[in-house]
């Protein structure tokens, strides 16, 4: 849920990277952090981890100002994927404005992906959100590995749902920005439809994405 304070001219948006344990959520954020300029974003905050696995969450904040002076903070969170951290997942999922579901492409992870997606659906319901309404994108990560589900198979399953699906290899930085940009795009549309970002604040989608995604020149 968008936090919007008209008086203060502030808006806080929240994107959540969800998915099964070890699918690469944290890696996605690390890569985003690496790929984007310091300008317009804060530092990646990796809260306590245990054996490199997220216990609480990771947070990558972005900040931009609309021509109207509206200050927008966009916070990208990861949840802990391990089943046992469900309470944390619920807490982080509160008031999400967009969700990226990071699946693990490995054949062996199929049922984990499925369970995690079900868990997402359930927890969205728990925090009062509707999976049909929330801007959502899906990423199949670890495409660089061998024993993975074929892309055609994935498309066959997901395309009918209308949810955009991206192939990625977060460890090598491929597909990470694409996923993020599409999620931001969808979220913009959602927020714009409710708060008139373009109309009332002079912030069109191009501007929004341009401020959010400032690639480092050496990576371009």
């Amino acid at each position: 849920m968008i936090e919007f304070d008209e008086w203060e001219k502030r808006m806080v948006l929240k994107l959540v990277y969800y998915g099964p344990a070890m699918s690469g959520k944290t890696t996605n954020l690390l890569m985003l952090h690496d790929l984007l300029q310091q300008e317009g974003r804060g530092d990646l905050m990796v809260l306590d981890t245990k054996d490199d696995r997220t216990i609480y969450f990771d947070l990558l904040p972005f900040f931009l100002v609309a021509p109207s002076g509206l200050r927008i903070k966009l916070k990208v969170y990861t949840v802990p994927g391990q089943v046992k951290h469900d309470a944390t997942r619920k807490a982080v999922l509160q008031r999400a404005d967009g969700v990226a579901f990071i699946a693990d492409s490995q054949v062996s992870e199929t049922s984990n992906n499925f369970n995690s997606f079900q868990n997402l659906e359930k927890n969205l319901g728990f925090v009062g959100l509707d999976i049909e309404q929330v801007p959502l994108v899906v990423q199949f990560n670890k495409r660089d590995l061998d024993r993975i589900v074929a892309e055609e198979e994935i498309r066959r399953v997901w395309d009918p749902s209308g949810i955009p699906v991206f192939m990625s290899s977060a460890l090598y930085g491929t597909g990470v920005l694409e996923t993020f940009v599409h999620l931001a795009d969808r979220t913009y549309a959602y927020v714009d439809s409710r708060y008139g970002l373009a109309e009332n604040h002079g912030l069109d989608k191009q501007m929004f994405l341009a401020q959010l995604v400032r690639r480092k020149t050496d990576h371009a």
Partner: protein
Amino acid sequence: MNFIGEIKFLVGAEKRLIDVLDEAQILPLFKSAVKAGIEFAAVVDDKNVPLWTLGPCPPASVVGEENWDARCKLLLEGEPVGAVCLRRGQVNPHGCEMMAHLIGDALNSIMANNLKRMLTTEIHTRVVNQSYDELRESHRQLIESEKKYRDLAENLELRVQERTEELKRAYARLLQQEKMVSVGQLAAGVAHEINNPNGYILSNLNTLRKYVGRMTSMLEYYRGLHEAAGSEKWRELKLDVVLGDVDELLDQSVSGAQKVKQIVSAFKGFSHVDDMGVSAVDINHEIDRTLGVLSGEMPGDTRIIKEFGVLPAFEGNGALLCQVFLNLFRNAFQARSEGLQLIITTEHEDDTLRIRFSDNGPGVPDEIHGRIFEPFFTTRDVGHGTGLGLTIAYDIVNGYGGTIEVENSKKGGAVFLIQLPATGRTDGQVR
């Protein structure tokens, strides 16, 4: 409008500069700067309002971006939230700039660390609270469902008890009904069988008395004809005594047969074979009637004291009421076999008919007080009483919307009190 200023994130709520910095962390840095020759140091917020300062109090004019010699932005999650500002004093402009950035960098990393710590605490507390809440919720649900099952179990027992009670009563009623029908049929049959012969015994006795009179006249006539021999024979046969006795024998026989006739009709009346329906019943009369058939069961020295009041006719079934009284009488007879004194009072007050049976027996022990009207509850030895008598009485009275209760009187002995609604027509007052 879209004003939702009140809504707060539960986790990761927006922090302000003053949330993530405090004086203790800033002052040492400022002190070093001042020691190095800086005139005035401040942390200002995004509207250039000083939050923390060190050095001589700045004039109002100082509060403005252009009045500082060096500034370094403070960023919170990428958002500019304030700045470190310095007035260089004796320090050269370049050195001042350097110092501002040094302090700015230090504060930025302090802020990041503080924020991280706060977020960790927040999420931790949140998760712990949430788990605690969930635990409490599931605990509550557990207790609730347990309570539901317990209620169910308890109710089940209660309902089984109720049903059993009902069944017992239904069974008792059935028994009673059957008994009444057979008693009634028997009474009707017996009454018929006895009434017929008893009828001609009575009428024959009357005829016989007439005939005996005639024969007596004849005998006296013969004695007159044969004065001497006749008188001799008369004396020999003690006909004076015999003829005197014949009258008495016949009187006794007639009154005996009449008694039989009475008893049979009382029996018939008691069993109400003639009317099993509802009619205007005289309760006092029914009590008398019941007593009539019980004369054989009554201990010899029993004293019955009747204190009957004037009662309106009771709209009901006489046979059933007789059953009530019969059972109360029997109960009294069994309570005391010698020297029983039973006082029966009836009275009418407002809308209630009250019938009291007070005996001078041992009374009802406290421990069985509550059970005395229960079906098959009996304190008597097997073979004496079915344990249904008082239950039947209870059921019948209950059926008329009345109550029956028992108490021990102060003088000892039990007092059974029946209260019936005076449903009867008030015009038909009977004594």
